């Protein structure tokens, strides 16, 4: 839990605002921003949608199985419906034939949504520099975390998920930055009117 999420200020404040008391009787406040609280909840309960197309999907299975077990990091609930998930893990090569399907699935996901590109093919097309292969899914959809490897080891994907959690905590994902930019623009617009 980072200090940005929750700031605990002991003592201070009036009796009415006291949220809790320590054993010694001093008062404890829990103050945070709603966004930060929501982000904390979101990042610790990611629901992945496995868009598994190729070899990386096999390693993704390893990550979900008991040996590596992604559920230790709060991303256990794999859902095959884009409506029910907020983390799109693109595991494997995406071809030009598959690209419209990927875009459709990304669009169907409810916000906030995050994308992990797993493996060399999804990141850059890998060693398939060829007539039917998308040279990196960021041609079509925004990506938050790129996990390199062909396929990445399960540890690498775990690291990717943890990294995404940190990014959500810091407000660095594509969705959050877009939202922040939109808010800033709205504020700027309001100031201009005033």
């Amino acid at each position, binding site marked *: 839990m980072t200090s940005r999420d929750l700031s605990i200020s002991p003592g201070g404040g009036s009796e009415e605002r006291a949220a809790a008391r320590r054993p010694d009787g001093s008062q404890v406040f829990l103050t945070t921003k709603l966004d930060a609280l929501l982000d904390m909840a979101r990042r610790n309960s990611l629901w992945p949608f496995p868009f598994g197309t*190729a070899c990386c999907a*096999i390693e993704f299975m390893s990550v979900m*199985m008991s040996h590596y077990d992604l559920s230790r990091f709060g991303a256990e609930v794999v859902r095959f419906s884009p409506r029910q998930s907020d983390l799109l893990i693109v595991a494997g090569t995406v071809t030009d034939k*598959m690209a419209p*399907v990927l875009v459709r699935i990304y669009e169907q996901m409810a916000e906030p949504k995050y994308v992990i590109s797993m493996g060399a093919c999804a990141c850059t097309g890998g060693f398939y520099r060829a007539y039917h*292969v998308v040279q990196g899914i960021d041609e079509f959809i925004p990506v938050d975390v790129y996990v390199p490897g062909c396929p990445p080891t399960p540890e690498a994907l775990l690291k990717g998920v943890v990294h995404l959690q940190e990014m959500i905590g810091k407000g660095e994902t594509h969705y959050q930055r877009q939202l922040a930019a939109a808010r800033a623009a709205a504020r700027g617009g309001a100031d201009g009117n005033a």
Partner: protein
Amino acid sequence: MATRDEIVASIRKAFPEGVRLLDGGDLPTFVVDRAELLRLARHLKDDPGLDFKLLADVCGADYAGREERFEAVYHLYSVTHGHRIRLKVPVREDDPVLPSVYGVWRAADWFEREAFDMFGLRFDGHPNLKRILCHPAFVGHPLRKDYEPGQRWLLREGEQDEPVWARQPHEDDDHFETQVINLGPSHPATHGTLRTVVRLDGEIITQAEVEIGYLHRCFEKMAERHTWKQVIPYTDRLNYCSPMINGVGYCLAVEKLAGIEAPPRAQLIRLILSELSRIMDHIVCIGANLNDLGAMTPFLYMYKAREEIYSILEACAGGRLTISYVRVGGLANDVPGDFVEAVRWILRRVPPLMNDMEKLITRNRIFRDRTEGVGVIAGAEALDWGWTGPCLRASGIPYDVRKAQPYLGYETFDFKVPIATTGDTFARYIVRVEEVRQSLHIIEQALERLQPGPIICDEHHVALPPKEQVYTEMEALIWHFKLIMEGARIPAGEVYGFTEGANGELGYYIVSDGGGKPYRIKVRPPCFAIFQAYPHMLVGHMVSDSVAILGSFNVIAGELDR
């Protein structure tokens, strides 16, 4: 088994004209006039002395600059006699038309579509000749030599292919409306990227069509652009559930063409790791199939064994999944010192896991109700579709390349080829379970025979010299330089290499022009032939059965679409 001469004599007698025998080669090869193709095909299939019931592969080849630029190449196999032949039908660029053999072997269905897609060969009389791997907005034929490999065509939403019948409203005899639904390409039960369009009457499937190619990543084009050795990592990604077998198959084919052989130790290690890969593959197939039917536990159990095998592969080659461990002429490096103990540990570890799984599943009422009598196919029909491997053996035909035409010394091992007779989804499950046991038995014997020795042959025009020699000897350094910079010089010629992949006969048809890169590589993917029967088998089944049947085929998209 008829000898080469008997086959040749029999064909010469029936076809004094229009069929020409080529000299030499790994298989009896005939150049056939396209006007004679259909008649010859019927003769080959129906003549009891020849009895070529299995059409293993149809592919195209482009010899740019030749008067008859294109060639359709057919590989046939006789399960009863155990012999093979190759047919080649040359056609001109301005008239690339030849008769379809779909009427003789139904296996030709998708193979001919692929040749059309890749080379623009037109098969006259094919029922549904349209693109199969490339998307509908694609222009040109990518495997032609003059097609630039990086030239892409974008597909927009709404341009995807749809079966003609799916657009037409259709009312059944009893005037209830039917509906068309899509299973895939992103669907939990497709394990990859397969799409099935079905028409439903209530819950019964009345019409089905399969769309593949969602993972077509241009293996064959890429192979033509890389040296012989650089192709090996690409082969790993064909059937990525058992990468080792693909690499072994490829290297055996190239070795056959180059006329070299790997040393005995390398052969044995190849065999051991291939069998471990087969176990891995069957484990995923069975586990995923059960998972789709609602039984999660066996998958979790079985995956433990898979993790153990991963760790052995990682210790040998450095990678877990895509290991690129095989080299033309041997192996990349020797196995670690504790290899034998580690494999023995696996041998002790897998049987209890299999027993646990079997206790849960084999007599499970729900499982049997959902699989027995579901997706039945008779042996002859399966063979007609080009089936091989466990799926064919589940229909009662005991064809296993390891027994029929042994390689890697399989003939010296004691193992049985399990078969089942009912040909349904349950039979395919039970055959795979037994194959895992047989593979363990083979590995056990192989471990006994493992002796120290070289792991790569010393034919240095093909195989890299050892690193210590490269640093100390001038000649070795030159070989190293030439092999890395130019690639091995494999003698010109063609070869069809075949091995028993985890889901059937994995064939490599390789053409070399004597250069450092392959001229043409065609993979004969076992699940390609199996999957083309799928839409025909679905009719009359329910949607939930379609999931059970698909899981039992072990269709791996990487191999299917290449």
